[in-house]
């Protein structure tokens, strides 16, 4: 690595050193309490999968360049130079961590390993050593925000096709209303979906059944910038939606079943004139207010369990709502972990699912404990509220022969709708 590259990377490192990050980097006592926290370590007990070990890979570089200790006596804390080999180590640490923050519950200080890994990810972006596909996807999202006109016609045509499906399945009367409204100024709720019919059709059915004054966003919710750990891209992707919400003067932005999108929107969008909710929260609200009715018939005879997506539950706070919804859908609900803070990650977070086949082998091996957790419930239907989790859990279902039916919670609500 030449001097200039290292300089540039260290400047990137410097930008991450806010107060919380310095706490995390200064404090770890390497007590090892986090050892069994990580699902990867639980599935494959190797030291490199311990949260403290991953964090130490970043910390060693911090000691070398940002701490007197590493300059005066590098061996004391095993301070390490930033080299090509170090970048490879950073890659291995960051892309075997799903950012689920289960270790943060174990740590007596509450060190956030995901946040420390964000340094590793940023350095990889700076060195052009990140998984290219994630940056490519992020750039596509950003480009779409810049040249919306170019995409608009195709998008609207796609939506028209979906409307037919909604009408067929739920036999709703259109009553002269648009089934999937787009670009409606003054709508109450802006729904941000994913690029996929499964993310739009059931949601539309529920919004219409509830008589919601809603509009569909032009943009997909997923934030590849966050996966790849690039704050600039993350912000650009987020801003597309924020600007759309401001332009349409909506009161609420509702994020589809995507953990990253929800957490980024909820926690990173700052103070805005609209509130941010997850589609799970919105559905629970409809049920509570009696705006929609559901029947338990659709899932009669099924034992149902629910996988808490880390970014929505442990890191986003949406814990009661999915359980409230499931109470209305089934009489046979089974908890996966006694304390939802301790729920295992599906093993697909942090961009791993987005990397597809490349990470499949690792995802299957590293999530063995998740598969076992599902198995222990003896459930036949596995519900979740996150696209990544759904993909990963479906892969696990195949790989481990779990024999469960993996479902999105929104789809379940839509399927159980009682349309009067």
């Amino acid at each position, binding site marked *: 690595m030449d001097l200039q590259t290292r300089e540039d990377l260290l400047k990137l490192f410097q930008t991450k050193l806010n107060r919380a990050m310095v706490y995390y980097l200064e404090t770890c006592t390497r007590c090892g309490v986090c050892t069994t926290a990580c699902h990867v370590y639980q599935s494959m007990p190797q030291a490199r999968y311990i949260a403290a070990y991953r964090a130490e890979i970043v910390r060693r570089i911090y000691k070398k360049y940002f701490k007197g200790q590493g300059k005066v006596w590098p061996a*004391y804390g095993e301070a390490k130079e930033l080299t090509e080999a170090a970048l490879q180590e950073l890659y291995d640490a960051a892309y075997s961590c799903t950012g689920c923050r289960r270790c943060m519950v174990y740590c007596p*200080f509450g060190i*956030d390993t995901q946040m420390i890994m964000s340094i590793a990810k940023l350095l990889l972006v700076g060195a052009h050593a990140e998984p290219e596909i994630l940056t490519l996807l992020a750039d596509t999202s950003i480009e779409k925000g810049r040249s919306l006109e170019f995409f608009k016609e195709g998008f609207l045509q796609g939506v028209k096709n979906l409307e037919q499906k909604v009408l067929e399945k739920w036999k709703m009367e259109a009553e002269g209303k648009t089934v999937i409204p787009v670009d409606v100024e003054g709508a109450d709720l802006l729904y941000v979906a994913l690029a996929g019919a499964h993310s739009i059709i059931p949601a539309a059915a529920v919004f219409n059944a509830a008589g919601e004054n809603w509009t569909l966003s032009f943009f997909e919710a997923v934030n590849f910038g966050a996966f790849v750990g690039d704050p600039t891209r993350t912000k650009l992707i987020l801003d597309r939606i924020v600007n759309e919400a401001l332009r349409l003067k909506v009161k609420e932005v509702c994020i589809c079943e995507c953990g990253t999108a929800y957490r980024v929107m909820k926690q990173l969008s700052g103070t805005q004139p609209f509130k941010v909710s997850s589609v799970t929260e919105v559905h629970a609200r409809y049920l509570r207010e009696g705006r929609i009715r559901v029947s338990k018939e659709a899932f009669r005879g099924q034992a149902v369990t629910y996988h808490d997506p880390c970014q929505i539950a442990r890191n986003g706070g949406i814990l009661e709502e999915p359980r409230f919804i499931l109470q209305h859908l089934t009489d046979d609900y089974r908890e996966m972990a006694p304390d939802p*803070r301790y729920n295992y990650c599906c093993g697909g977070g942090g961009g791993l699912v987005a990397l597809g086949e490349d990470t499949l082998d690792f995802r299957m091996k590293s999530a063995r404990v998740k598969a076992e957790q599902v198995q222990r419930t003896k459930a036949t239907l596995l519900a979740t509220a996150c696209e990544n989790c759904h993909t990963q859990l479906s892969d696990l279902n195949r790989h481990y022969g779990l024999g469960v039916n993996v479902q999105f919670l929104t789809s379940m609500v839509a399927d159980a709708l009682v349309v009067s």
Partner: protein
Amino acid sequence: MQTAYYLILVPMVYAAFAVFVLGTAVRLIQTARRPPHPTTLQIFPKKEPAWLYAVADTFLMPSVLRHTPVLWFFLAVFHLAVLLLIIGHLELFGDWAVFQVVPHEVFLGRGFVGLAAAVSLLYLLVRRFHAPVRDLSVPEDYYLLILLFLTVIFGSQMDWARRWYDYDVMGVGAYRAYLWSLVTFKPFVPDEILYSGHAFMLVLHVFFANLFLMVFPFTKMMHTFLALPMNLLKRG
């Protein structure tokens, strides 16, 4: 030899305290002046009052108790012993009514507090030599434990000598005279300390304690001050 003793007992103590106090203050202020993290870092479900849970997390270490109970036991013993040892040392400066609520002879705990600290430090050290903690450890972790162990063992020796073996040359009176002379910047080491047979123990105790204080601000020992703010972040 007496000159070396004097250097350790007087100038080095001043230097150690200066490094400790200034180093810690500067490092804490530098950290506090950094920009805060823009988003919440909390873990859900949120429990109220969050600050109380953060205090409990910091001082009772419930997650350690839950996942590694044996470690929790020794950590609790060690940290409690350190607290009592600090009180014991404060009493070497003079009489404190508040500490004499439970009447006792200085040092607190009849020598067993130091013993408890030494045993728990040995446990922490031995634990580091076994996987998986061994794989996580860096030299710092061993150095600090060894340094603390040496400090505690030589310090406790003096207590044990008086308590358990009726050694009475160096007593609390001598320590008070010595420590007050340091506080009032009229440094003076009483002859009974400088020339007694056990002087080397005191000198070694002070020497290792000085080293410890001097590295404190630049090592993971900063967890002493950062544990609470970090748990506050986690609790939201």
